[in-house]
């Protein structure tokens, strides 16, 4: 029986429209055999959490370059908990000061990928994390 494909939601939360990274990750994960849903721009945490439930995803990838991560991430993590989606792997990519990373991980974010990360590293991380 073929293994169920890993389902990933790539999301652009907040007002920022810079989507080069989000689109590249979406394509790279698709090329690596995952099912990828891209939310498009200007998503609120509510919209992302709802999409994650609706699409029944294993992974959520947030692309945040705007400096709004300390507002967006806690809101999303709370919503995911409320919707019973605490076991979804949440990843963040973008412009994140190193000083903010420990708190983000404490809140349940599995990993933060900074500029310069290779797409292969992200694919590998997901496979390892989901053990498939």
């Amino acid at each position, binding site marked *: 029986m073929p293994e169920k494909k890993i389902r990933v939601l790539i999301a652009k939360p907040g*007002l920022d429209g810079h*989507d080069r990274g989000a689109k*590249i990750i979406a*394509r790279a994960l698709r090329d690596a055999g995952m099912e*990828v849903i*891209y939310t498009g721009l200007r998503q609120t945490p509510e919209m992302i959490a709802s999409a994650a439930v609706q699409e029944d995803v294993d992974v959520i990838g947030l692309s945040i370059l705007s400096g709004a991560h*300390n507002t967006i991430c806690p809101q999303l993590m709370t919503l995911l908990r409320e919707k019973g989606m605490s076991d979804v792997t949440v990843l963040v990519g973008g412009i994140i000061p190193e000083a903010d990373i420990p708190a983000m991980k404490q809140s349940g974010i599995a990993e933060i990928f900074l500029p*310069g990360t*290779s797409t292969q590293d992200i694919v590998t991380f997901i496979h390892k994390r989901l053990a498939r």
Partner: protein
Amino acid sequence: MSDKVKGTTTTITTGDAPAAPREPSSQERAWEKNTLRPTLEKSPERQTEFTTISGYPIRRLYTPADLPGWDPNRDLGFPGEPPYTRGIHSTMHRGRLWTMRQFAGFGTAEDTNQRFRYLLAQGQTGLSTAFDLPTLMGYDSDHPLSEGEVGKCGVAISSLADMEVLFDKIPLANVTTSMTINSPAAVIWAMYLAVAEKQGADWKKLSGTLQNDILKEYIAQKEYIYPPEPSMRLVIDTFEFGVKNTPKFNPISISGYHIREAGSTAIQELAFTLRDGMEYVEYGMRRGLDVDQFVPQLSFFFNAHNDFFEEIAKYRAARRIWHKAMVERYGAKNPRTWALRFHTQTAGCSLTAQQPYNNVVRTALQAMAAVLGGTQSLHTNSLDEAWALPTEFAATIALRTQQIIAHETGVTNTVDPLGGSYFVETLTNEVERGAWDYIEKIDAMGGMVAAIERSYPQREIAEASYKYQVAVDKKEKIIVGVNDYVATEKALDILQIDETVAHRQAERLTKLRADRSKSEVDRRLNALRKTAEGKDNLMPFLFDAVKSYATVGEICDALREVFGTYEEVAIT
């Protein structure tokens, strides 16, 4: 081939003629046989192919054989004269250095005003304003969607009151200002003009630039609010207003920077930017504006990326293409219509989070390319670009980079120093040719708005950016400190912006709404809405609205009610 005047159009043949076959001289053939071949047999070259960063193949050596039919009078010309390959002024940087115009903005208007005055005191010669995301997207600082975003990517401006603080102790009559704002550009411009009026500055002498390039938002930066047609109406309203009221102000900065940052190649950056420019010219002419009156006020904005010679070729080709297009497509007669003026910013996307001090070097080399390419104005990025907005320390080094190039390197001693180089002239021809291919493709689609609706430039950019990432991941492209020459390092001290900005703004807005005349605001917003539904120029109504202290959000919402909002079809 010489110029042929046919009525109001002239046909110009420049380096975009089809490529003739390369025929090396007998001396070159002898060199290949006697000197090159033995070397290659002993030690092959490091790579089988050498390409520009955009993937364009580069030959081992460029000789006259690469420029068959090249005519220095037709293709190179003289600076300050068509085809402007060598520059738009006859003395270029010998006459006047480019404007050192550092993009700055963060936190509150007070914070940014302080940074503005610091940079001016350190020797920068023009201002450039970065606005925060809520302002860019037409929301007040206290709008629910602004949460977490206030003052983070630029300065928070919600009303004329904020704008007045932003330019406190800065005489707009004497300092030129660029404002990086697009969807709400006309609103912010109205605020700027109101501040100028209050300061007693003469609008007819006011100089500066409004980015106001909505086409590249749909293509690359995605900070659009309204759909294309009403957005273009707003832009042309600013052109029309500018011709009559602010003849020295650039109501637009037609941008390739963001297109390149989104991952396009150099040729795509050039082609899409210039074709955007032509689209604005056509819309302006359809409005009844005289091409020789409004086009001289249009300015351009390019990226300065890593591939040194490709970038220089790009700027030279840009000038040649624009001149040809203005003459052949629109019958322009004014040399100021023909001469492409541009600002450059070094490539933010090329800077690394790893080993950030390497970025000082990258920025310096990119800035050099922009100078050698004949830019009129320049922003150099700070070393902490990949981590945060610039600290004062990092912003100062970036400014000093320009000052060192200007005063210590000697490159400004002569105009277009690379002119006549077999390599640079060939590359200029090739980049021009590649750009015309794209331009003609977009013409065939019905123009840039049509191409955008088909997602054509968006798809080209997505493809180019993915190809580039694959090459980096495979280490076919080396990025020092990232996929090679990696080292562990300690964290950088970076600029922190916290939520106190948002709280201050919220307090200010509460006070503003209490102090102003609500009935007057409502009356002016109604007049604005009514005009938006019709065809009259919106600028006077925006001016009235901002002077009553209607906020950015209120004004943009009034226009949202009439114009609707835009959602793109996402391409991955």
